[in-house]
């Protein structure tokens, strides 16, 4: 892999040739020869990085040459050295990639914000290509004044901006019966956290005037799945947002461009993407995604319905299978905690499979219904450990063990698995996914 594309290399060489024209003949030849050598060296910089050529006391190759100029990437993209930091999917999970899911590389994130390019994806009929000029939101049903809003209309309302996590109800759902995902990305990666900007649904409902009988809101997407969910009016009037921007830019197509719903703290499926319609009613609809799917089947063969909230959860992101320890010494053991019911109050870490616990520090912002960072410093002696984290939220709810979850719900519910997670750290620093029960 070269530092420069062929075109950039040609441009750079032309520049060098022009710039060196005033130099005397022999100096110019030397200058160009060294420039050519440097361009070649840049081309092998990646392989050289493993050697000592760029380490002190040597002056690194990149300090002795010119780099590409502004607007080389007008939108911008990460360093090519970060090319492994991408969303990934598990092929055997779904029939095809149109109705499928991809996961966020949690072990590679810093802070609490997930970059837009790495937010997990879940589509049921692929990503529609929506022209925002032609997109409309219709609000009707038990309202005084049914209206149609364009994207331009929506931008005129009072706006809110909030940092909230978004998590698929099935995050971790492959592991009710036992551990089977080889990485953090697959065990917990249907989870992201963004700064969302939009209009409170309550603002829009005040605009149309809801009738006294109103109790439910149907939110419906403009995708081929016509994804639709029934949302209780209490939630709609509480903190639901109609979102048009994430992390400072327009929503990404795979996140619902140009408009989506966001139900903070609730299972991701209720946060309807590509939002085209809101209908107010006195009863829920029992859509496919609130009967056949997104209902929690219990041991007795009955199922829980309208199970919206994502309960308090946490996971250690370092070390993790993707982030092993490399030799004994001091390490920061850290992770994410989150709760759909509010703020994280505390997180405890166990290094011995849950026998003893120490309280971790909450680092950075501690916000309601947001990812929250926790960490401890630990001097690792090179001994095998069983690492766990246990989060407590502001309601006093304590993250349960997998044994407690199974005793209460069995192993067939798919959704809402928020149990304490265990990583097995071996003496060589490698980490694997295990369960203690």
């Amino acid at each position, binding site marked *: 892999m070269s530092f420069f594309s062929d075109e950039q290399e040609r441009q750079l060489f032309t520049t060098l040739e022009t710039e060196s024209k005033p130099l005397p003949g022999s100096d110019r030849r030397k200058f160009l020869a060294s420039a050519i050598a440097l361009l070649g060296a840049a081309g092998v910089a990646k392989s050289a990085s493993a050697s000592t050529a760029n380490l002190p006391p040597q002056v690194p190759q990149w300090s002795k040459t010119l780099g590409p100029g502004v607007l080389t990437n007008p939108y911008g993209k990460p360093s090519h050295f970060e090319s492994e930091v991408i969303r990934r999917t598990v092929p055997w999970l779904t029939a095809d990639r149109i109705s499928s899911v991809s996961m966020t590389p949690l072990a590679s994130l810093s802070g609490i914000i997930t970059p837009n390019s790495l937010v997990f994806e879940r589509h049921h009929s692929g990503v529609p290509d929506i022209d925002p000029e032609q997109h409309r939101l219709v609000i009707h049903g038990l309202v005084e004044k049914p209206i149609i809003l364009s994207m331009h*209309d929506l931008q005129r309302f009072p706006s809110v901006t909030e940092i909230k996590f978004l998590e698929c109800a*099935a995050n971790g759902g492959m592991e009710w019966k036992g551990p089977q995902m080889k990485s953090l990305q697959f065990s917990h990666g249907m989870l992201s956290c963004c700064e969302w900007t939009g209009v409170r649904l309550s603002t829009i409902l005040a605009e149309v005037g809801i009738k006294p009988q109103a109790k439910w809101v149907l939110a419906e997407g403009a995708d081929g799945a016509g994804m639709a969910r029934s949302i209780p009016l209490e939630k709609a009037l509480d903190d639901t947002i109609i979102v048009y921007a994430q992390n400072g830019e327009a929503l990404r197509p795979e996140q619902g461009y140009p408009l989506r719903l966001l139900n903070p703290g609730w299972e991701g499926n209720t946060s309807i993407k590509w939002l085209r319609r809101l209908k107010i009613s006195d009863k829920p609809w029992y859509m496919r995604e609130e009967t056949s799917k997104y209902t929690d089947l219990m041991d007795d063969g009955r199922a829980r319905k309208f199970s919206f909230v994502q309960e308090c959860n946490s996971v250690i992101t370092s070390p993790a299978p993707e982030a092993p320890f490399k030799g004994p010494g001091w390490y920061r053991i850290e992770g994410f905690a989150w709760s759909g019911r509010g703020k994280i109050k505390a997180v405890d870490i166990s290094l011995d499979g849950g026998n003893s616990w120490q309280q971790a520090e909450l680092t950075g912002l501690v916000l309601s219904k947001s990812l929250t960072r926790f960490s401890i410093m630990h001097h690792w002696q090179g001994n095998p450990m069983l690492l766990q984290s246990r989060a407590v939220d502001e309601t006093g709810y304590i993250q349960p063990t997998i044994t407690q979850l199974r005793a209460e719900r069995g192993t067939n519910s798919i959704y809402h698995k928020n149990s304490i997670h265990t990583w097995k750290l071996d003496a060589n620093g490698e980490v694997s996914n295990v369960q203690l029960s």
Partner: protein
Amino acid sequence: MYNLVNTVSLKFFGLCAALLLSSALLQASEKTPQATYNQGAAFAIGSPASSTEIAGWDIDVRPDGVGLPVGSGSVEQGALLYEQKCAMCHGDFGEGAGRYPKLAGGEGSLQDARPEKTVGSYWPYTSTLWDYIRRAMPYYAPQSLQVDEVYSLTAYVLNLNDILDDDAVVDQQSLMQIEMPNRDGFYLDTRPDIQNDRCMQDCLKDTEQKLVSSLAQPQVDVD
């Protein structure tokens, strides 16, 4: 005494002034956009939605039949349509192809180690089936079916699940009278359902823990 009276009268005067002032403020605030908005009178942003405009998008159907359009379809018609438009993913008899959903079978399996959640074994209402076929099926061409075709396909899927006879015909009234086998199989979420302790030391003293490192067979259902 004089001082006291004076203080009282001053207080009284102050109270009157405060009342007058707040009343003036209230009148002023009624004219602010925020006050107007709080009363639900709105910003008057957007366009009125006409009944014609709404009708084109108003496709949802409820279990009580609200939203179900006039029409009808037969198991026989549904079988022909299914073979052309559905069988490649859902299998000739609703058994599913590859990882695409199974539509039939699984009766009585909901307590099994590997339950089969199909239309017949799990779905509580026929309205959901009708609504979903209209809004999202066939997978490769959503919202392409005519109303009567949706009735026919609904009838055929119910027939695959032994809920309708081979010669059955359904319409907006008869579809609502069909009771699905698992209609009483759902109840409202009861979480939080688990109370863990925040034990800090010697938490496993009376506990035998078994370490499981990986499942032999992948569990595949995620949604």
